[in-house]
């Protein structure tokens, strides 16, 4: 992992090359996190991948999280890996919820990292985050016509209630 000073250097260089992209850094338990502005994520990733002394050319994982009730609500995490130096950089983009039933949008990085194809579809399926420019954005794990974004914090876990003596009368003929 780049240590804290290395992380600050990366943030500084990235902030110069792609102005306005870096909004923060975190270094916690040895993990270096770069917080970037969601509008400039693809440019930041491109810089991190193509600059010779950065060369984070492997996207190990693209995942998301819902920070409800905090705002901005959604986090899209990119785990970048430089295989030669064995260094991992965690890039995070925080998205607001647009409100009015609209879906948060982000640019897709499939041209940079083709591995993001399925992973962005999973983010769309689970969180409802729309990726602009993704060739085939549709649900991947849930049935195609499913409604709702399961991994959001306000989506109920679902399932059946466990029947005890205090609530079994509410379920008619459960014994059949």
């Amino acid at each position, binding site marked *: 992992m780049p240590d804290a000073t290395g992380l600050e250097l990366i943030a500084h260089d990235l902030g110069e090359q792609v102005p306005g992209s870096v909004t923060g850094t975190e270094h916690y338990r040895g993990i270096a996190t770069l917080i970037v502005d969601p509008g400039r994520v693809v440019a930041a990733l491109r810089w991190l991948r193509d600059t010779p002394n950065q060369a984070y050319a492997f996207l190990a994982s693209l995942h998301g999280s819902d920070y409800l009730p905090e705002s901005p609500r959604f986090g899209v995490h990119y785990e970048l890996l430089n295989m030669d130096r064995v260094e991992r950089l965690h890039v995070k983009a925080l998205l607001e919820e647009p409100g009015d039933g609209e879906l948060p949008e982000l640019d897709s990085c499939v041209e940079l990292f083709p591995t993001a194809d399925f992973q962005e579809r999973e983010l769309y399926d689970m969180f409802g985050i729309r990726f602009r420019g993704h060739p085939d954005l549709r649900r991947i794990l849930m049935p195609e016509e499913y409604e709702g974004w399961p991994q959001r914090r306000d989506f109920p876990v*679902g399932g059946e209630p466990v029947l005890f003596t205090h609530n079994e009368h509410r379920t008619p003929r459960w014994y059949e």
Partner: protein
Amino acid sequence: MEIVRGHAGGPEDFRVRQLRARDLLRGDLAGTDLEAHVEQSVLTTTFERAVNWARSNALWPATFGLACCAIEMMSIVTARYDSARFGAEVFRASPRQADMLILSGRVSIKMAPIIRRIYDQMLEPKWVIAMGACSSSAGVFNNYALVAGADKFLPVDVHVPGCPPRPESLIHGILKLQRKVQGEPDLGWRTRYEAEGTEEVGEPAVPHGA
């Protein structure tokens, strides 16, 4: 649901049969009496019992591995647990050739209609073993993505508990199913579960049972 045991009547039945058998040997039974006797004691009882015995000892499972339980289901075919001793070795890939469906694994909401379709494609008589906790109830999981138990959309004959059940448990379940098959002379899961009226709406291309 009652299990109809085969023709194990009380002492009066036995006495009646004994007298009829004596008459038969003496040559005193004739005409319709003789026909009724033969039909009842020789053909029906023995034939059905024989057929059920043959069915139970040659239960061909359909390959239906869904999740972790499938690995333990695969291992009952292997040399240590050897389901071939019980006739259940030949796993048929095509549901039309299989007569037992072992639901090994969790039933998700996307997979449920497909499982139902496979079940419908199987020919009568057919039985279902729900292997593992996930296909009997929701198992370890109880959430939006699973159907809490395959018996919500399928009639299940034997539930095998475990997560995953040991191969010996599954073989125990198969043996229990064999005893069930031997004890039930009637065919057709609709009669077995009194599920008349669950046929699909609309005229099928081929009439049911033809």
